[in-house]
């Protein structure tokens, strides 16, 4: 196809490196923000430092893959309906199941630990992480399980050259920035989730959860069912983790599906949590996007040979270490006041 080649030569538009960095940063930021949000909600409401969040993310992503592609529920009973609707329903099914698993874990392993030292509870979640991750990885197997989302590899172009529309538009059209539809989806969903959380905390149950976070005993004395709040917090946390896992397993991230390393990728959300401060919900979102941009910028611009491979992957941790040196409680975390 000679036309296309000529067209490509004549084009004045250069794909923007900066634009690609920003788009990638937004995509990463959405992942980290959603994971951090779930983590912080669990921590605030139940005083549990959930090291199993990465495992829950992988589990949630696998459940989505299971419903959407492996057994195709409910898509198999609704032939003819649009693909996106089938997929959305599968995701909702998976999220409900993930919420149930979150509540079950809380009831089985964390309810007996109420009132124990924070550290002991954190180590219990490390144990949960090992169990959930191993079983999930056994289900995932050695293959990559695609999410079956309707967005696929499609992108939307910004600043495209006029008239470059020849044949297959997606292949030939030259744009300065290409935004994958998955990233658009992730950003919209993140905004929706943040708004939902904000509204939730203004509802009656949300106020009860905030009261529980403030003081469990006093909340009980006010007639709040603290146990139910714990279960709810874990359900929300598990759903957020599952959505984070879904984001990790979507197009711009390799390998485009959930595999045995998804749980480890989710570990990178911890720096985002720390950066924002363990107990701050705005901090989780700011920290998530800050870490996402830092990682994206590092992997775009810091490509010196002496840095070796995979430096982008440790940038979150480096940023976390540096920030903690300056602000030991993160950017928005509550400072622990030591009084004698």
């Amino acid at each position, binding site marked *: 196809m000679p036309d296309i080649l000529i067209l490509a030569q004549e084009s004045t538009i250069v794909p923007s490196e900066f634009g690609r960095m920003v788009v990638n940063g937004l995509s990463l930021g959405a992942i980290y923000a959603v994971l951090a949000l779930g983590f912080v909600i669990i921590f605030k409401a139940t005083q549990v430092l959930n090291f199993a969040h990465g495992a829950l993310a992988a589990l949630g992503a696998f459940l989505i893959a299971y419903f959407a592609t492996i057994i195709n529920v409910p898509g198999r009973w609704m032939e003819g309906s649009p693909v996106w609707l089938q997929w959305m329903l599968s995701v909702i099914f998976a999220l409900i199941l993930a919420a149930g698993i979150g509540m079950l874990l809380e009831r089985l392993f964390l309810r007996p630990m109420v009132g124990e030292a924070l550290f002991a509870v954190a180590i219990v979640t490390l*144990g949960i992480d090992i169990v959930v991750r191993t079983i999930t990885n056994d289900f995932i197997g050695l293959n990559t399980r695609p999410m079956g989302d309707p967005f696929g590899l499609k992108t939307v172009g910004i600043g495209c050259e006029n008239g470059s529309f020849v044949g297959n538009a997606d292949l030939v059209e030259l744009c300065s920035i290409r935004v994958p539809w998955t990233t658009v989806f992730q950003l919209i969903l993140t905004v929706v989730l943040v708004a939902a959380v904000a509204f939730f905390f203004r509802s009656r149950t949300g106020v009860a959860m905030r009261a529980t976070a403030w003081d469990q005993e006093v909340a009980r004395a006010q007639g709040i069912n603290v146990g139910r709040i714990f279960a709810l917090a874990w359900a929300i946390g598990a759903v957020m983790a599952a959505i984070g896992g879904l984001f990790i397993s979507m197009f711009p991230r390799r390998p485009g599906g959930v595999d045995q390393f998804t749980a480890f990728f989710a570990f990178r959300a911890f720096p985002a949590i720390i950066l924002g401060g363990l107990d701050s919900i705005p901090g989780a979102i700011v920290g998530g996007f800050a870490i996402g941009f830092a990682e994206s910028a590092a992997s775009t611009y810091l490509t010196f040979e002496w840095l070796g491979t*995979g430096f982008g992957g440790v940038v979150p941790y480096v940023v976390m270490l540096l920030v903690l040196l300056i602000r030991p409680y993160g950017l928005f975390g509550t400072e622990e006041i030591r009084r004698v």
Partner: protein
Amino acid sequence: MRGRPLLYTSYESDQAILNTTTKKLAVGVLLFVLILIPLQPFFAGQFGWETGIWGIGFMGEDDWLRLLATVAIFVIGGLGLNILLGLAGQVSLGHAFFMGVGAYVAAVLGGDPEGVRLGFGLPIWIWLPAAGLVAALIGVAFGPAAVRVRGLYLAFVTLGLVFVGDYVFRNAVSVTGGAEVGRTFPPLDVRLWKEEEPLISFSTDGSWFGVDLTSEAKTFYFMLVAAVVFMILARNLQRTRVGRAFQSIRDRDIAAEIMGVDEVGYKLRAFGISSFYAGVSGALLASFVGSVIPSRWDLFLSVEFIAIVLIGGAGTVSGVVLGSAFVILLPRLVRDLTVWMQEVVTTGDSFMASILDIFIATESTDFGLVNTLPGVGPGLSVFQLNQVIYGLLIILFLIFEPLGLYGIWIRIRNYWKGWPFTY
């Protein structure tokens, strides 16, 4: 003091390293048995014993000796984490990083000078202490960051350390051999300087004092001695001024500071000492295994050590020994158990076989909780089963017995102390 074992007439006897009869007896018997274990061939065929001393004969086999040597190495590393976590009360997920540092210092100093990777060929009496010292220095250098953050944040800082360390190890190819390749580590042989023939060789079979020993048996003795030395040091630390300062910081840091304990200084010391143990343990582990890839020093190893300290019982030396033995020997027991179950299921037609069939898959179409067949299928592999048991043990111990195996022993002891009364 017959009949009054807990009556101390002097401060020295109260603070002695082995301050009760039970401890003296237990340690003595344990050491005696451990020393006898590799000598099985010597006893085989005598006193009517076929494969060696009755009851422990099977442990004289080479693979069991390797396991026991690994236990000794993990005891050293576990003692290090115990000082930090059990005595000083500081959470660290970064233990694996310091072990990696120790291992690579050992590799560089003791490695083959003509090898592919960096190595100076120095003897063990240089590289083993150096491994500990460099790890300790890095631990102290990292200390100010660790001292500034408290409690839960510290867990995350040390978590970051493991991931940053993993990245450095993967990319420092001239030292570590790179991500998938790894490098070889110096053998345990003792030389005076760089001479050809080692003074004492642990990596070849040979005879000591007229007893033929395999290299595994010799290595086991080496690790046993090393572990005992570090156990005495750790036990001694608990009763010194430094050890008491650690415990006061653990119990109430503000109160400790008011009493004049220099919190920052002692936390730095705790990190340094803990890292020293980790460095030595890492160097020994790498040297023992021979060839290690950088991802050996990952988060999972750190969690393994936390499990050792918590399952054994935080703050006690004997707890660390129990925990290490438990954590290292458990996979072997699980493996043997699955092999046995498989045998019963495939050969037998008994009632037992039909029950065990639920747990184990023998054909690719068979259902089972455990699937030892190669390839994918429903059911966990033996390795995965180990992991799950492991995670469950951490959870269950923390929920039901926070003092660990040591706590179980305390309960048994207290029961018999007051027997037949309940208290």
